[in-house]
């Protein structure tokens, strides 16, 4: 079947799949596919953003207190790290477009590194909220929603303590889903870096680099919304 295509179209690029008539058509299709996927992602996160909007308008005080408890400095540092990773990603795509193989590999590895820094910081942020929830006795400082949730650190009582649980449900839900997207992105970046190192990409064909770049930028943009909504709404 591939042979039939080859005869029909003469010699063609090894990356051209049999059901496309040209590399250009294949690139446009892949690119549109990624954009449709991103549209899907927007709606996927959209459910959580809708829930956030509803609950924040219902419980502004608890949200403010919960937000105040998050460290905006750590969040800001992580924002810079993530924007940096978007820069290296964009440089990687550019390098692929001009055919600089070693730079592509280098920039993608830098992107992976920055992404890992972000995830490590997130790990410690989560840890200080989750660790007090384990063990017997008092669970002072436990911020995981549920029976052991401790609202005293937020200076909240009564129903507002429950509302703060909703804030932290959203905090873990939204940042968790975001982190999951990064955790999925890193191995994909590794595969792309490997293929780049093997010399698979050229100025005519580097669609996979472009696509993973789109994905990575999308995940960064989600964080750009999450950071102010979660970290900056309390008065500091």
């Amino acid at each position, binding site marked *: 079947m591939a042979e039939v295509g080859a005869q029909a179209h003469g010699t063609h690029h090894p990356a051209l799949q049999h059901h496309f008539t040209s590399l250009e058509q294949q690139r446009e299709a892949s690119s549109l596919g990624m954009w449709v996927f991103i549209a899907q992602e927007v709606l996927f996160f959209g459910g959580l953003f809708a829930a956030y909007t509803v609950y924040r308008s219902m419980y502004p005080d608890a949200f403010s207190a919960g937000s105040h408890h998050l460290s905006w400095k750590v969040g800001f540092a992580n924002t810079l790290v993530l924007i940096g990773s978007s820069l290296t990603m964009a440089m990687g795509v550019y390098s692929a477009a001009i055919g600089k193989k070693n730079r592509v590999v280098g920039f993608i590895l830098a992107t992976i590194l920055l992404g890992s820094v972000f995830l490590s910081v997130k790990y410690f942020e989560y840890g200080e909220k989750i660790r007090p929830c384990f063990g017997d006795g008092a669970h002072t400082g436990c911020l995981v929603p*549920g029976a052991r949730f401790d609202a005293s650190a937020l200076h909240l009582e009564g129903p507002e303590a429950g509302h703060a649980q909703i804030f932290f449900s959203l905090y873990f839900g939204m940042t968790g889903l975001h982190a999951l997207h990064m955790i999925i992105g890193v191995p994909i970046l590794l595969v792309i870096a490997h293929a780049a190192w093997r010399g698979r990409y050229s100025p005519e064909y580097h669609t996979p680099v472009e696509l993973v770049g789109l994905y990575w930028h999308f995940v960064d943009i989600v964080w750009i919304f999450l950071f102010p909504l979660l970290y900056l709404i309390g008065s500091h």
Partner: protein
Amino acid sequence: MSSEPRSLPADHYLKAGWDLKSWLLTTDHKRIGLLYLMSITLMFAIGSLYAGIVRWNLLVPDGSQMSAEAYNKAFTGHGVVMVFFFLIPSIPATLGNFLIPLMIGAKDLAFPRINLLSWYIYVIGAALTMWALLSGGLETGWTFYTPYSTVFAESNVEVAAIGIFIAGFSSILTGLNFIVTIHKMRAPGLTWFRLPLFVWAHYATSIIQVLGTPVVAITILLVALERIFHFGFFDPNRGGDPILFQHLFWFYSHPAVYIMILPSMGVISEIVTCFSRKRIFGYSFIAMSSLAIAAIGFLVWAHHMYVTGMAVYSAMVFSALTYLVAVPSAIKTFNWTATLFRGSVKWDTPMIYVFCFIGLFLIGGLTGLFLGNLGVDVHLTDTYFVVAHFHYIMVGGAIMGYLGALHFWWPKITGRKYIESWGKVSSLLVFVGFNLTFFPQFVLGYLGMPRRYHAYPEEFQILNVLSTAGATILGFGYLFPFSYLTHSIFRGEPAGDNPWGAKGLEWTTQSPPLTHNFDEIPVVTEEPYDYASPPKEAARG
């Protein structure tokens, strides 16, 4: 038409291999369509068994046939299996998969491997959900309403929710594949307004799949998270709002109704013009009304929630929008009817299903307007009237279209003819059985019988017995096509390239098609449905 063929073509897609590996690793959209066809047929059988259990219980008013809990699990199983694992993938994943590349003159969908992946995702999601249903069951109803599903339900909610979450991505990937394929893979000369209406309908469907499904996916994931990690999204004790769940759920699940019905409407447009031997009336109106349904369909979800105590002004807006979304459906119905006018109508099996569809969809659609009306809905909410209404759409509409499509394109898929007289008899059985099952439910609902109760007052028994009798006939109506279509795969006469004398690129290639569909990519030079001129002979290399 060409002379009667004596045998199937020497080479076609089914001959690419008979072993398991050639099926499980295939990237041919036609084979993946058949994989889906087998999977959803199995799920349809399971969902029908659940329906049988429900109808069997309702034969007697006192609920003595089974416990209330078992009954709850039976109707939940019926809803979950039928909605998520049969109706939503039904036409798009089987016939859409098979036909869209053929109809637009492409060798395959844009992403063949993602297409195969979507089938595996479907199978994993279906297996998980079935495991949840069979080991302990699920009694939340297919709607998973909170706080019942998050706090009180003691069944396998988490596993079922995750199964449905996974299956959702199969639907998203199918929609994504169709959108890109329709945009980028059309044959030369095939402009947007030369596309078959089946393709337009699937384009609109795909938009809903891509934009709606992720919302229900995250919502149902939140239910699972709330049960596993005790998050408080929908927990009233902590200030969470259970009604928010309903908003998010129906934001997808109302458009999901259009995922089920739009592809059927596409099928009806193809068949009605072919068997009237006449160009379809109002082509561009039918095409655009599909998009209008997809767009307006996203704005009507709260009509499922009039009795939740929502603000009266928002209820009025949603009611008005609900009336608005009926307009494009009415446009289609008028256009199909106008196509019949002065056509040379032929009563073959696919066409009988078209007549079934138009009549039943009309009743289903009009009763939908009763329910969209604020005052009437308060009386009818959660009664059998609602059950009857949506079965007229989903069974009377979606499944009639699905059966019509299966019969219409069966010769293309298998290369063989089914026995026409059997087709006619079973379509009659389906029509009679369907109406006997569901028309009494309109009356029951109007008289006040609530849905989802396993016992009911004695005066409702006659109507319930009628309904169960109808369901039995309907069951046989579905068994027949299964038998004679299967029979035709082995014994049917070779059908030839274009047994109906139909227009459209899929009929210009051989039956069954080659693995790469066309020897040469066709060039389109004529308007769609040009039934005034004779059908083209197949272009053979």
